[in-house]
């Protein structure tokens, strides 16, 4: 009788790049669904455009670099980058914004540094910051959530809006767009109103903005599912939310007229998306256990600092890129000790 001998390891690893990426995409569904419900189908058109552009860019640059094309395309990393970029964009962004952003993310931020696993910065956020810095006008035109908008756009209107930058004749641009909750807190504070006064405005819902809090809830749900599936560790999301929450609580305790509630900051803007999906990118984040907590705390506090005292209403992309920059140093100083080694 013949026994087959198998070399160790006897337990096959269960996580491969494409499996992880697929689960991340699945976890994004509740958030995307909420966004579609409150802001219309523009986000789906953006996702489709970004994915197509990212896959074409990935295929052509892999060809240029003489790398195997189909194997890398199938690992879905470009799709995740494209989807994360697309859901960060304003839903009425013209088509070329989405396409140029995806190309920049894949070609400059990912492949010029050596492709998946070598990029020091999160490609989706590099693409987003590139667009925000280059095209501030298109990147700050946010749509009003459906319950506040008097205009109902049909599918044809959406396609016209995104591809031809045309609104229906009876509608003007200012009727469909609206400042985001974070943006209005910022500008209204500048006009001398206090935060409790501002939050009685129609754009604000139970905790954060109308619509926005549900989108954030969707991402929280997806993120918790990723935690449960052990796709991401708890350290970065908890660290990030803690950093932001602590900072916001201290400021709120000092002066509740000048600083918004911590719960507002946790559910407004890109906090939940960033905490669970963007900061946790395994390539660009810190890797040691303690390091990831520090990394999360750092990004969380940066988000708060930039939101309140910086030049932009939301700061997840900038905070994540700054965090990426510090990740190697954090890893260096938090390397776990080998057993028996002296401090």
């Amino acid at each position, binding site marked *: 009788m013949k026994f087959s001998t198998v070399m160790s390891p006897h337990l096959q690893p269960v996580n491969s790049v494409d499996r992880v990426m697929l689960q991340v995409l699945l976890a994004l569904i509740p958030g995307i669904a909420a966004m579609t419900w409150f802001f219309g189908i523009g986000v789906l058109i953006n996702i489709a455009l970004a994915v197509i552009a990212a896959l074409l860019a990935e295929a052509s640059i892999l060809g240029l670099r003489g790398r195997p094309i189909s194997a890398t395309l199938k690992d879905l990393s470009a799709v995740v980058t494209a989807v994360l970029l697309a859901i960060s964009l304003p839903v009425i962004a013209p088509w070329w914004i989405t396409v140029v952003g995806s190309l920049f993310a894949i070609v*400059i931020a990912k492949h*010029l540094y050596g492709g998946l696993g070598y990029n020091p910065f999160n490609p989706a956020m590099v693409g987003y910051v*590139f667009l925000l*810095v*280059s*095209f*501030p*006008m298109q990147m700050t035109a946010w749509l009003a959530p459906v319950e506040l908008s008097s205009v109902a756009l049909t599918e044809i209107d959406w396609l016209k809006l995104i591809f031809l930058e045309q609104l229906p004749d009876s509608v003007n641009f200012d009727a469909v767009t609206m400042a985001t909750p974070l943006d209005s807190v910022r500008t209204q504070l500048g006009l001398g109103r206090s935060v409790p006064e501002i939050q009685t405005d129609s754009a604000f819902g139970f905790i954060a903005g109308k619509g926005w809090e549900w989108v954030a809830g969707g991402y929280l749900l997806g993120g918790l599912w990723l935690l449960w599936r052990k796709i991401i560790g708890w350290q970065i999301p908890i660290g990030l939310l803690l950093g932001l929450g602590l900072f916001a609580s201290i400021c709120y305790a000092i002066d509740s007229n000048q600083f918004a509630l911590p719960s507002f900051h946790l559910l407004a803007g890109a906090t939940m998306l960033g905490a669970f999906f963007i900061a946790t990118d395994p390539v660009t984040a810190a890797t040691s256990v303690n390091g990831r907590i520090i990394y999360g705390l750092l990004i969380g506090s940066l988000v708060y600092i930039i939101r309140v005292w910086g030049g932009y209403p939301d700061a997840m992309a900038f905070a994540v890129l700054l965090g990426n920059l510090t990740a190697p140093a954090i890893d260096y100083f938090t390397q776990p000790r080998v057993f028996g080694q002296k401090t």
Partner: protein
Amino acid sequence: MFSEYSKIVKDGLWLNNQAFVALLGLCPLLAVSNTVINGLGLGLATTMTLVFSNTIISLIRNFVPDEVRLPVFVLVIASVVTMIELAMNAWFFGLYKILGIFIPLIVTNCSIIGRAEAYASKQRADKAFLDGLSMGLGFTFALVTLGSLREVIGSGTLFTKAELMFGEAATTWQIDVITDYSGMLLAILPPGAFIGLGLLIALKNIIDTKIKQRKPAHIQIPIQAAQEQ
């Protein structure tokens, strides 16, 4: 004799281009290359400085003790730059105002002291002159290329404000490469300069590789050399 001079020119313009190969003088290169005219203006000012400083330093090279050569070089370069600054103030006032601090800062451009120390202080005046001219033109070439790249991508035009350099007749020189373009701010901001320079260096490396492939390197065979002896 002729080949020596042609090598100097080739080195300056391409093989040892101060911006693309030596990566010297990056501060002005990145700071003022947002339009073609700015790039051309600063490039020509740098070229003038290089020509004069190289020639003067080569002429006085035998009288300068080795121990104090660097302060002397800096003094020479600073005097030349001051003269050029005053001349630009007199004749190209509009351009002078746009380039601002970057004209006096030519003094600190490392490629100028670099050429003085590495070349002019060891060579005859005619060679030093040619070296200054070709290094300067190479630098100007880099500035103009980067400037046109950033101007086209950043604001969709070329040769905007050409009248600052070429007089009133040049007011109509502006070319709208992309009409009805709202601009891409990143290309005009400093990060655009870094990304653009990186892409241009990559392009130069591609061209160099293509040239090398087309013309296999001449290898001297030792046996033949031995037989000839």
